């Protein structure tokens, strides 16, 4: 007899317990973090380290090249300037040393020298011979300076003292910026000065024509920081510069200037400056440029390299996170699958162990039952052979033996159920027309269903081919399910049981649905309905083995069973059976059949 269940349910699949689920969730999170960190460690970190390293190296290399360029510019122009000044100083000294005062002041002599000086390049503005008293003895040039006395001028004493003097830029009598190179020469007691005024334009072009980008400029400063040439961008010749000249030093010096203000008070951005002192005169050659422009290309390359590097790193990170998430999803799916298999295994194990127990119990009950049966038979035999004491006794005797027989048969059914559950019954694989089979089962149960106000409805798929299965066990399965379905309507005046078959020829599977309109199964009983001895019926109404037997038979026949239920609405069991039973079942049955032959 099938075990009625009063409530709806789902299949034997279970979900992990809440604490286990939380622990598993934490494990997934830990696994996720590990994968991501591993990716970062193995790919991102080397990429960033190498990228940053190469970038740093390239930046340093490019900056060194730029600074070398600055140094080269300063060195080159310093040499040109010094060469210019030395050349003019030497020429003046040559003239002074190869002429006496009288010779040089002879009419035309100085003019000749002046023209020779300017033969190739117009580098001298004028040339004059000045006596000890400070007046011109001879003059070649565009100005009228004969009446000028230079003895009080700052340069006069310097040249008289040093023999060679190169002045800073000054305005002088001509009221325009210029500078002079002067040498002294003595002829006996006569000391005279040969003074040349350098063509300012020609000299300034040596420095001012230096062009470095938009913000680059070159200029000369004297020891007091006064412009000796005009800076290209701000300030003017002979104005005081804001450049911090510092003290004299040998060689070339690179400086970073921040917060430097122009002559008009406007603050300049960070600048890179390269400077070198001239030995004579003590002028400072400065070449400078805005830092942003000087290292613009480097910074540009640097920026784009870093952008590319970080975009690549970010891409790797995103891809690794996505891949890791995908992997975790796969792991989760596999874990869920493993859980499902474990649940099935546990269910099978539980059924197997309870099956063993049931078999033992059945045996222990069967023996006393067999004795009771023999005792009953002995009493019946005795009654047939020996006279009864009276009709009332005979009536009671017959009633009692009849009741003994009824109860023995009841116990026998229980033990048979136990034995069937423990798979101890005989199986036989035959061709089964499932649709015809379902009709037979409906016919078998129809009377009982009608008495409970239940109607059967069938939707049988005509395309369903005959199966190879065990008809007696299938009968047990569907009788149990239909009995449960009928019992689930207890308390309802009427209801229905719907039996549906479907063919899945692609997967070679047959589907059978047994759906009722009964009371359904409460969620609390969901995961237990396939457990042996679980029942919600009153004591003596069922052993709680019905659905366990169904479950074990379906599994044994290679099928699956699942259930959906809604309390108050009904329950639907779905059984999926293969067209052919599992190989191991066929083999075991073939062996048994052979033995019996």
């Amino acid at each position, binding site marked *: 007899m099938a075990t009625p269940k009063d409530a709806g349910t789902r299949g034997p699949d279970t979900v992990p317990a809440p604490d286990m689920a939380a622990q598993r969730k934490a494990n997934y999170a830990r696994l996720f973090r590990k994968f991501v960190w591993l990716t970062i460690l193995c790919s991102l970190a080397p990429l960033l380290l190498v990228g940053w390293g190469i970038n740093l190296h390239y930046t340093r290399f490019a900056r060194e090249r730029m600074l070398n360029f600055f140094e080269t510019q300063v060195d080159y122009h310093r040499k040109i300037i010094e060469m210019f000044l030395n050349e003019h100083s030497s020429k003046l000294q040559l003239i002074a040393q190869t002429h006496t005062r009288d010779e040089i002041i002879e009419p035309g002599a100085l003019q000749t020298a002046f023209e020779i000086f300017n033969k190739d390049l117009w580098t001298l503005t004028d040339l004059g011979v000045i006596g000890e008293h400070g007046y011109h003895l001879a003059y070649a040039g565009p100005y009228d300076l004969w009446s000028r006395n230079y003895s009080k001028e700052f340069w006069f004493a310097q040249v008289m003292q040093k023999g060679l003097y190169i002045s800073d830029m000054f305005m002088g009598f001509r009221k325009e910026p210029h500078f002079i190179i002067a040498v002294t020469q003595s002829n006996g007691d006569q000391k005279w000065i040969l003074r040349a005024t350098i063509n300012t334009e020609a000299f300034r072009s040596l420095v001012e024509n230096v062009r470095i980008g938009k913000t680059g400029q070159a200029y000369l400063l004297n020891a007091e920081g006064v412009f000796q040439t005009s800076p290209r961008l701000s300030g003017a010749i002979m104005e005081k510069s804001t450049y911090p000249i510092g003290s004299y030093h040998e060689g070339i010096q690179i400086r970073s200037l921040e917060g430097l203000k122009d002559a008009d008070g406007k603050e300049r951005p960070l600048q890179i400056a390269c400077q070198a002192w001239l030995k004579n005169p003590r002028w400072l050659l400065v070449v400078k440029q805005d830092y942003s422009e000087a290292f613009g290309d480097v910074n540009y390359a640097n920026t784009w390299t870093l952008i590319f590097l970080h975009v690549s790193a970010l891409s790797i990170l995103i891809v690794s996170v996505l891949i890791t998430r995908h992997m975790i999803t796969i792991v989760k799916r596999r874990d869920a699958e493993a859980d499902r298999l474990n649940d099935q295994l546990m269910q099978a194990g539980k059924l197997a162990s309870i099956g063993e127990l049931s078999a033992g119990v059945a045996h222990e009950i069967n023996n006393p039952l067999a004795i009771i*049966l023999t005792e009953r*038979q002995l009493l019946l035999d005795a009654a047939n052979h020996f006279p009864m004491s009276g009709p009332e006794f005979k009536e009671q005797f017959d009633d009692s033996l009849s009741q003994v027989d009824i109860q023995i048969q009841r116990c*026998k059914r229980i033990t048979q159920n136990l034995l069937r559950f423990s798979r101890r019954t005989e199986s036989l694989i035959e061709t089964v027309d499932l649709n015809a089979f379902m009709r037979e089962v409906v016919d078998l149960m129809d009377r009982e269903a009608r008495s409970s106000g239940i109607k059967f409805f069938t939707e049988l798929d005509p395309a369903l081919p005959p199966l190879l299965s065990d008809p007696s066990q299938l009968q047990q399965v569907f009788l149990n399910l239909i009995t449960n379905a009928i019992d689930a309507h207890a308390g309802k005046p009427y209801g229905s049981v719907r039996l549906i078959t479907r063919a899945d020829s692609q997967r070679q599977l047959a589907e059978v649905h047994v759906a009722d309109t009964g009371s359904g199964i409460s969620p609390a009983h969901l995961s237990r309905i396939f457990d042996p001895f679980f029942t919600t019926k009153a004591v003596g109404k069922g052993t709680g083995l019905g659905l366990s037997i169904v479950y074990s038979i379906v599994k044994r026949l290679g099928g699956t069973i699942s259930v959906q239920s809604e309390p108050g609405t009904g329950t639907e069991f779905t059984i999926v059976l293969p067209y052919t039973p599992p190989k191991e079942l066929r083999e075991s049955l073939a062996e*048994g059949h052979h*033995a019996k032959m």
Partner: protein
Amino acid sequence: MPGSRVLLVDDETVFTKNMSKLLTYRGYKVIAVNSGDAAIRELEQADFDVIVLDLKMPGMDGITTLKEIMKLGLFTETLILTGHGSIDTALEAMKLGAYDYLTKPCEIDELVAKIEAAWEKKEGKE
């Protein structure tokens, strides 16, 4: 056939006593023993037509007893009677040479029918 000699082997003494009576009422000559060893001894001393053998017994179990019986090379047919209801064990017994099996509890008429069938087979062999 009434008059056939039946050896009843079961560790349940009440069962063997009752079954002996029932079979005796039905004309069989029944010897009942309660162990496999006793069964072998009886078989060595007397001839039987049918043996009704329980599978699950303490000491020498039914399968071992059956193997010993087969070693004796008798014409006797053996019926397996078991409360265990194990098809596997019963099939194993049949592989070893048992004629058929019944599960406890069984009606006396069912047992008698099997004994008759076994007797007929045994007579056929002889």
